[in-house]
């Protein structure tokens, strides 16, 4: 069975998921890196700045490839499922409390 054809017609739902959840995911991953690198310190450390830079490529990649989802609904669902463990892990580090 061949997978269903992709089209650019339902771009809005997919792009919105990529823009919003893509940003949430990128921010979460930057937070995990912030914790893992021990970027916290007085003022803005170079590690902390690096985690800010990380947001850009992650967000851009998700935005570019979110069109490969079959529908806007699937994009929202799958990206939500990706965000959940990242933000749960970030919560577990105690950084969100």
């Amino acid at each position, binding site marked *: 069975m061949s997978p269903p054809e992709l089209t650019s017609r339902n771009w809005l739902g997919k792009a919105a998921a990529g823009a919003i959840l893509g940003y949430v995911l990128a921010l979460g991953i930057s937070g995990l890196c912030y914790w893992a690198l021990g*970027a*916290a310190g*007085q003022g803005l450390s170079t590690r902390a700045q*690096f985690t*800010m830079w990380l947001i*850009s490529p992650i967000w851009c990649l998700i*935005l570019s*490839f979110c*069109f490969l989802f079959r529908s806007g609904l699937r994009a929202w669902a799958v990206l939500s499922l990706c965000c959940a463990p990242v933000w749960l892990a970030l919560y577990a580090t105690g950084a969100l409390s």
Partner: protein
Amino acid sequence: MKLRTDIVKMYKEIHGWVGIISGLCLFVAFYAGAITMFEHSLQRWASPASTLPAPVALERVPELVDKVIAADPRAAKAYTVHLQTGTEEPARVSWSIASDKRDEHAPQTTFYGALDAKGQLVVQSAGPSPVGGFIDQLHQQAGLMIGTEPGLLLMGVVSLLYAIALVSGVIVLLPSLVKDLFATRLGRNAKRMWLDLHNVLGLFSLPFHIIMALTAVVFAFHDPFYASQGATFSNAMERPARPAGKPPTPPGPPPAPVSPATVVASLAHELPGFTPKELRYGTAPNGTPSLQVRGEDPRYGNRGPNFTVAILDPATGTVTGPDYLGGQQDGWGALLTGFFTLHFGSFGGIAIRWAYFVMGLAGAFLFYTGNLLWVESRRKRERRQSGPVVQSRATRILGALTVGAPLGCVAGSAVTIAAAKPLAAVATLGLHSAIYHAVFFGFVAWALVRGSARAAIELLPGAALALLTIPLASLAFSARFETSVPALDAIAVVACGLLVLIWRATLTRVRQGPRDSVWSLEAATPQGPAPREETAQ
């Protein structure tokens, strides 16, 4: 490489739409960005001879600074000592006062201080030309004139679209990559030719474009990025690092800042190879004094567009903050400096500046060919549907904008640069902006009224003439300007010659090209083969 045809088709459509939305803004950003590669030369060309007394020797700077602060106490908070002075930086000491304290992007007035022969303070607000700053602003906000913050955010969105356009463009090209890459078919088929050019330019400059897209997203969005990090995790993680209960400021007034002569001497000892250019005495957010030194070190990439940064202890002049300093920073700092310097082209000296200049112009041309392709492919689709060719309003408008906006940008920046000479001391950022936008919107309006074909023939010589105003201004005002930059005049003449060549090619195309093209004069005239055209408006 094989890819599913529906994926390629989908990304082709996405590439077209994100491209057409962001293309004209990107053209302006890249064209102006290419000029900023030589901002220093532009400033030397554009700045009138200063009427300030000659800069005092470094040893007398404390005396000058004391007199400045006595005359204008606001200068005590932040002032800059310029170690390298010249036409483009006439004063030893300058200080800037913001018109609105709450807004860090608010326009500032800069004052320049000097001592005359009797040791009296002379203060002027007329300094070097603001045209370099205007071109920089044009680069950052594409001349959108919606304020700095909204302009940055909008350019951030444009940068995101640009990133999507890069990925989708590569996906579209992948299946035919081997077949198409080295085949540039410059023939009768105009669309094929533009597509081949677009592909070869896009693919070979892809690393440059990836750098620009990713860094531009950060430059535009770094305030929101830091704010959202702070709102979620970074503030919370930082709290334990601050020792509680300790008074934030030491008792008593801070020690007097170290004198510039001492700083220069200690830097020569501590950082051999680093040439300081300016000492920025300032005040940290917590009220304590700060000292930042900007300078050059050709051995390393620069953190800034044309400077690298050392943070010093203002009381002793020793380096305390090596984070931004090539050779002293840790690996993370070096990585960050890499991101900045790759965007600014501030590494590897003059050769890289020229390379970035060429790549910036090539990027602008890439977006122009992209727009042309959008117009060309729309045209074809309509021919299939409706038989007799009537270009849709969208195609006509975008065709006209594709001609008017880039040529308007080229002409507008040329005229506003040339205007620096006659304006001289009365030039302001606002005046340069007004001149640029008057020319830009004039070109765009002309293109919309006359249609793309006629506008191209009429506006190309206009833009060529606009470029000629630069060497003409050099000649006409040579008496009032101490420095000349012949290379800048020469580039303007070469660019003018290129536009004349393009003009001649366009004339041929307009006369001999296919009648159903948006570039055909016949299609644009009411008595042509398309009677419904234009009468419907």
